[in-house]
């Protein structure tokens, strides 16, 4: 491996006018990797023998690397490495060799086997990184010492410290400490480190510096995890994005995914709306109709099937998102919807570093639905009676009494609250040069906005890395997670519909609540839910053991074995006593105890070989054999008719009626994968990947499939004609194509299942079991495959101030796994089958700009954009009407040439008014006017049409970070444009008992409704129908759900480290933040993003204050 290639770019940046400095930096992880190869010899004593004639210095260094364990690091600018030398050395030490090769002009530093070359400084104060107190005070007036750490306080060994305008420089030691003699108080130091943004320091009167470097998110030397290995960003051929949760650290991200929401092009994360809920994630839109569209989640190199909400955002080192077919091909059929690779934090050598993070805040509903107050409620009754002369609805006695006493209740206000959220986390990391550790623990506590909606999570993590021998290292990553979702929230549903004149309390009712606030059977008090004794606890234990062996007798060959296990236990117990609901009263108490256990394990064997042949050919081969197994057990016991209500679900035996259910299933996957990476002359990179997948849920003869992908990247900026460009720092063109499978279907999907129920014969007898054939077998069930092409461009311009990438893709998914509606005449409604073809194309870009970057003030801007469109190409080629065009599949809502999420149905055009003369049969004034598309004077199914699609046209977000001295301000604005969804606010309100239900029944007269100006003879609304409208046809009301949202705002202040160091702290930060500050939208429901309407729950806005410190 030619490590120095990593540093051989011509990196330059202007600090002050005309000044140019060098940047030599070493990424810690590379050193660590190399340490693995190092033998415990003293490298300074390595003997070097070379015999060359008129050879370039670069080749001489290559020769040394190929014959010894020594590796060189240097910057091209410090010397003309193209010079030629003729040398004959026999068993000389490195010191002598360097001196001879560079004729004394270069100095070096040895860190294990790494030789860092640098310009020789006349007076060298850097020996052993200790200041030489006897040095020449004439030239160097002042000695400065300090330490360099990253944001988390981890030391950065090997960082470069250079005095601007001089050749004077040094680098930090293993603990990140350095000292340097500078010319005086006017000196400016530049601190740089690979993968981090450089920092300028005005020396002034300081002598002791504590410097924190910010990670450079656009650095080309970032190591990107690509699945079963990692690559330098510069060598990557596929569409891969690495992101760290750093910027959003100060936000109350109850879920790790929130930390990257709106920050990656093509990654769409929708926010949850209750305590502890998991958001939905889509990478590049939906491809599949019925199979899963969720991306594969991989944690610490091992596939993770648990909930992503399990993790604490602060424990995450980085996310790597694989988007195109080439990059995801290593995960084959598991990766049809992209891959989300999560790396947890690891320790770094050095003294223990403690870090404490905390925040506390509150959250509230971003928006609540406006309900009728007492006056509106009464008017509704008046209007209902007017429309239905026989109805004769009146207020109940309770309602009359409350009205008389002026008691009104806004139930929604009553059941919602400002929920407190808090998070406390402590981690410690450190280690020796052989063993490092990272240990963390956190408690996250969240109160949802609805009373009794609570979530508590405890995380414990241990990450341990150790070098057993010089060639064998072991890592152990583990976490324990306990989530507690116990307790049922108050019912939003019942709160909507409850009369404003209802009684909240009744001293004789359960726990003092009035069970039926107005005495109506269906109008249960929303607080009754909170009285249900419910326990919902989930624990997860995850462990990954990783063994890496550098096979000694084949250079560049490495064997990695990962074994990951994950066990999840979910307990869901509930007891509804015989005083709460109608059914629990009738059944005299209902209890359930459920235990679900899932156990997954993965065993990966990975062989990796890297070598550089000659000067310019770098190859990297990865071979994988992987086996994954998942099994699940569910045991559920239920009982009712409790002789005593005292004990509940822990004493099911007290119930007279017993019922039990058990379930057990397992699935297995077997995969082999090969990946070849070839880079020629730093300019051209090729990747070829092939993977064979086997999955148990497919039909007997279709268990295995092979998928292949290839990619090519051209780093144009390394071409001679661009290398000297003043403005273009980096330009890479990427092309990829390939095919992936989708196995996102449930176990046993190809089998015909029989479910059981019961019947009985005779009075007082017992039940007998019944068999019902639930699903149709599909002996052909096979893989869904997606062939896709991706073209991408990565660039960095204007001194790396602006960087970004553009990607466009086109994919075709074939043999879609579809849960297809079939004629129910067969006895089955649906069957899982492979059919059809869907095209998905999209465009996405992200641009990062460092608008200002100086020590006191910085401003970064980040724009992310993505747009994708899909359409159905084929549905299996049926043309029953023989018109030469393939038929649409109306039953499934699939139409050739239309998006898979097209909305099909009857279109409405306002409301029929009293004077209308064109009212069709079956309709009347105040009804929705369904469009008679074929103008035949009647509404029939032939009038249905495509009304739009639900997915957006594009998603864009804009992030800005401003930094002024210790202050840092971050704001993210995100927007989704286009797409519509049926809005129950004006459409389907059946379940909410509100105006204009589309169903066959309504309780409009018995319950409250939301406050809309519904149609009456005196209020001829053209938007809302009459109160008692019953639609003869199901018709959606599509509403645009475009929105612009101020999603994240955070302001933080970092205290001066120098001051902190004096009191023993390494960092101290306070911050305040707002999540979901405001949404601008025309959507009339709660949340346009998740299209929640009156049926769902509102979006959450949270406000927090936090404190982080390290010591």
């Amino acid at each position, binding site marked *: 491996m030619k490590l120095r290639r990593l540093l051989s770019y011509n990196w330059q940046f202007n600090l002050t006018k005309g000044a140019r400095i060098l940047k030599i930096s070493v990424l810690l992880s590379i050193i660590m990797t190399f340490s693995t190869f190092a033998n415990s010899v003293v490298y300074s004593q390595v003997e070097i023998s070379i015999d060359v004639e008129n050879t370039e210095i670069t080749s001489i260094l290559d020769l040394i690397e190929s014959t010894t364990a020594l590796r060189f690091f240097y910057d091209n600018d410090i010397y003309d490495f193209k010079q030629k030398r003729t040398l004959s050395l026999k068993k000389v030490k490195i010191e002598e060799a360097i001196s001879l090769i560079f004729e004394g002009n270069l100095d070096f530093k040895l860190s294990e086997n790494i030789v860092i070359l640098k310009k020789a400084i006349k007076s060298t104060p850097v020996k052993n990184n200790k200041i030489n107190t006897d040095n020449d005070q004439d030239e160097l007036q002042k000695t400065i010492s300090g330490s360099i750490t990253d944001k988390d306080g981890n030391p950065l060994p090997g960082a470069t410290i250079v005095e601007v305008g001089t050749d004077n420089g040094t680098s930090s030691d293993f603990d990140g400490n350095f000292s340097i003699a500078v010319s005086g108080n006017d000196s400016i130091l530049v601190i740089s480190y690979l993968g981090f943004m450089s920092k300028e320091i005005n020396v002034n009167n300081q002598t002791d510096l504590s410097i924190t470097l910010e990670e450079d998110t656009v650095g080309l030397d970032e190591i990107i995890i690509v699945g079963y290995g990692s690559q330098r960003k510069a060598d990557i051929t596929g569409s891969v994005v690495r992101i760290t949760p750093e910027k959003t650290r100060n936000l109350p991200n109850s879920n790790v995914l929130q930390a990257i929401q709106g920050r990656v092009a093509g990654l769409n994360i929708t926010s949850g709306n209750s305590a502890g809920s998991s958001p939905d994630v889509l990478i590049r839109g939906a491809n599949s109709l019925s199979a899963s569209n969720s991306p594969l989640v991989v944690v610490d190199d091992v596939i993770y099937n648990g909930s992503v909400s399990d993790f604490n955002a602060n424990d995450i080192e980085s996310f790597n998102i694989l988007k195109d077919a080439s990059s995801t091909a290593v995960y084959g059929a598991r990766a049809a919807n992209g891959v989300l690779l999560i790396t947890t934090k690891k320790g770094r050598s050095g003294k223990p570093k403690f870090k404490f993070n905390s925040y506390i805040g509150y959250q509230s509903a971003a928006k609540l639905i406006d309900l009728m107050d007492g006056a509106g409620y009464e008017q509704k009754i008046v209007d209902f009676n007017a429309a239905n002369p026989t109805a004769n609805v009146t207020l109940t006695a309770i309602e009359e009494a409350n009205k008389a006493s002026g008691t009104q209740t806004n139930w929604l206000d009553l059941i919602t609250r400002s929920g407190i959220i808090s998070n406390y986390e402590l981690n410690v990391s450190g280690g020796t040069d052989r063993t490092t550790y990272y240990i963390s623990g956190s408690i996250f506590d969240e109160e949802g906005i609805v009373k009794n909606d609570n979530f508590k999570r405890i995380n414990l993590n241990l990450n341990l890395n150790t070098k057993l021998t010089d060639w064998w290292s072991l890592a152990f990553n583990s976490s324990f997670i306990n989530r507690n979702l116990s307790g049922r929230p108050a019912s939003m549903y019942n709160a909507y519909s409850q009369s404003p004149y209802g009684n909240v309390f009744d001293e004789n009712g359960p726990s003092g609540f009035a069970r039926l606030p107005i005495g109506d059977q269906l109008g249960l008090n929303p607080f009754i839910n909170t009285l249900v004794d419910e326990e919902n606890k989930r624990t997860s234990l995850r462990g990954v053991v990783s063994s890496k062996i550098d096979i000694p007798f084949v250079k560049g060959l490495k064997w990695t074995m990962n074994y990951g296990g994950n066990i999840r236990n979910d307990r869901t117990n509930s007891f509804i006593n015989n005083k709460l609901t109608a059914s629990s009263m009738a059944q005299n108490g209902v209890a359930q105890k459920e235990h679900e256990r899932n156990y997954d394990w993965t065993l990966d064997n990975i062989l990796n070989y890297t070598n550089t042949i000659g000067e310019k050919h770098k190859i990297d081969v990865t071979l994988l054999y992987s086996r994954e197994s998942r099994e699940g057990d569910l045991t559920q016991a239920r009982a009712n008719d409790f002789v005593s209500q005292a004990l509940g679900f822990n004493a099911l035996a007290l119930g007279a009626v017993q019922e039990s259910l058990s379930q057990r*299933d397992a699935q297995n996957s077997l995969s082999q994968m090969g990946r070849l990476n070839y880079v020629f002359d730093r300019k051209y990179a090729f990747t070829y990947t092939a993977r064979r997948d086997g999955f148990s849920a497919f039909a007997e003869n279709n268990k295995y499939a092979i998928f292949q992908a290839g990619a090519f990247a051209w780093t144009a900026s390394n071409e001679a004609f661009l290398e000297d460009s003043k403005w273009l720092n980096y330009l890479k063109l990427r092309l990829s194509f390939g095919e992936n499978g989708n196995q996102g279907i449930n176990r046993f999907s190809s089998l015909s299942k029989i479910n*059981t129920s*019961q019947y009985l014969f005779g009075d007082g007898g017992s039940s007998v079991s019944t068999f019902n054939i639930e699903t149709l077998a599909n002996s052909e069930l096979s893989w869904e495959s997606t062939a896709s092409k991706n073209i991408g461009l990565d660039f960095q311009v204007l001194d790396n101030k602006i960087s970004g990438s553009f990607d466009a893709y086109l994919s075709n998914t074939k043999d879609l796994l579809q849960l297809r*509606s*079939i004629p129910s*005449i067969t006895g089955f409604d649906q069957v899982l089958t492979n059919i059809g073809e869907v095209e998905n194309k999209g465009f996405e870009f992200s641009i990062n700009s460092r608008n200002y970057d100086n020590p006191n003030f910085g401003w970064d801007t980040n724009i992310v954009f993505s747009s994708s469109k899909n359409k159905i190409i084929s549905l299996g080629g049926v043309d*029953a009407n023989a018109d030469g065009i393939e038929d649409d599949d109306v039953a499934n809502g699939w139409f050739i040439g239309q998006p898979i999420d097209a909305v099909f149905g009857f279109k409405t055009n306002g409301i029929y008014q009293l004077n209308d003369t064109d009212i069709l049969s079956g309709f009347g004034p105040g009804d929705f006017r369904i469009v008679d598309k074929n103008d035949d004077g009647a509404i029939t*199914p032939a009038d249905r049409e495509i009304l739009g699609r639900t997915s957006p046209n594009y998603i864009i977000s804009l992030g800005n970070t401003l930094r002024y001295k210790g202050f840092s301000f971050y704001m993210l604005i995100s927007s989704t444009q286009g797409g519509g969804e049926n809005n129950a606010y004006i459409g389907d309100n*059946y379940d909410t008992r509100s105006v204009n239900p589309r169903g*066959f029944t309504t309780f409009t007269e018995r319950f409250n409704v939301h406050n809309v100006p519904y149609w009456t003879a005196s209020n001829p609304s053209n938007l809302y129908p009459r109160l008692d409208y019953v639609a003869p046809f199901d018709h959606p009301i599509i509403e645009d759900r475009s929105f612009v949202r101020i999603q994240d705002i955070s302001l933080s202040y970092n205290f001066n480290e120098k001051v902190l160091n004096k009191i023993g702290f390494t960092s101290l930060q306070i911050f305040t933040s707002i999540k979901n500050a405001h949404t601008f939208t025309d959507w009339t429901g709660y949340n346009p993003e998740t299209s929640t309407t009156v049926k769902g729950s509102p979006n959450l806005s949270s406000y927090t204050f936090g404190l982080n410190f390290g010591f």
Partner: protein
Amino acid sequence: MKKYFTYNYLFINILSITLLLVSCSDDLLVEKPESFLTPSNAFVNADGYNAAIAELHRLSRGLRTSEVVNDYAIKNFEEDKAVTTIYANGTDIASFAVTNQNQFTDYAKINSTNPLVSAYWKILYKMIANANTIVANITVSELKEEDKLRIEGNARFFRAFAYRFLVYLYGDVPLLTAEIKTPKFDFTRAPVNDILAFMKEDLEFASANLPSENPGDGQLSKAAADHILAETLISLKDYTGAIQAASLVIDNSQYALMQSRFGSSTSIDGDVFWDLFRINNQNGSSGNTESIWVWQLDFTTLNGEPKNRLTRCWGPRLERVKDSEGNRAYVVPPASIDTLGRGVGFVHPTEYLEYTIWESDFNNDIRNSKYNMQRRFTNNNPASPEFGQMMVPRASDLSRNHNVFVKKTAAREGYPQGYDTDGRMYTDMYAIRLAETYLLRAEAYFLNGDNTNSTADINIIRNRAQATPIASSLITLDYILDERARELVSEEPRRLTLARMNKLAERVRLYNPVSAPSIQDFHNLWPIPQDAIDANLEAELIQNPGY
């Protein structure tokens, strides 16, 4: 030595990978279901087939309790409305109480997207598919011949029973005679007569192979097959055959109309007709010789309690009736002990059912006694000044809150747990009762031109009811329908009977003023569900005319 050790270790490791690579076994990916059955291991013995037959019993019970309606994705359609639409509402005997809703009240609102139309279609074809699977497997199974025949007889009975609903509700429908193992998209409608002929074959097989002695409560017997066969033969215009089939039941000495009081509630005032509908009085084991096939319900038995919704649907919503001071005139149990339960008044009887059909024998027909057709209700609210007095309904109460209560749908004893706040009870329900067999034979005799025998059969029913015998000159199909209403109200699927006789539109116009303005002749049949038409990609399922 150290070096030797490490290389040795490495060797072992590499060996272990190699072994893993080699051990790539296909067995690993074979699926073995561990917690559910598949046809291959379910249908291996008589127990498996019996369980499949029991499921057909459960599904058929769902046609009246609607327990399975929810299983078949009936969107926005409550079970209450499902049952009442088949058994009463929108026919000549009743309409849905809330007139603004399209519970087959305004026929202009009935179209092929109607969820009820779709749900019944699905349940019925599910029964047919299950029966076809049983028949296909049993024929090749290794069971004893007698078990084979009995099981096939049961399955074919249910297949015919499902087609009976389909053919009368929808007219021509796809005819499935064999098991379907792969999806099919090219169904076409078979003529009604083909369906009827297929039903005839199935029922004849069932009649020959079902036990001639009533084998047990809730089980099928030969008589059940003969009864449905008689009805089918009437539709096939084979009146002689129908008379023969019905006679096989009537002449069987196991069956006779109940003539005197019996069973669980004899200590309470009532009459024999009332006794027929008390709890635990339906099965043969209770001494009831009139029942041929009974759908079973039982409190606190696993899945034995889908609950019958009769009180809920047929009981007037008395709790809304007020006294002169605006207090409730009726307090629902458990706050009060009353025999009336908690009616919700979904079925609003027409004047035809409340008065017209009783006019000739208003006081002597026991089916119109105060036990069986309650017209007066007592104020039971102790807080009301009119406590204990007869309720005086307001005009608006008459639409739903205060109407004639068909008491065979109510039984205080139907709540073994004391009371059910939902108004659901646990009384078994007749699927086939001997009285109907008489009325079927009367219909067949009449259509065969034999008024004398027709009259005789009708009068057997009337005699038991203590009604005046009818003169043979007065017998018409409409009279038979009137008699069926008197005898079988709430038991017979009235919509099916009227559709079978092509009388729905005609009699709705005569007797149901709510639906009369909107009903047209084509409404005699339901539309073919739109989802069935839409999913049938490779052939067109032609819609019934008018829809």
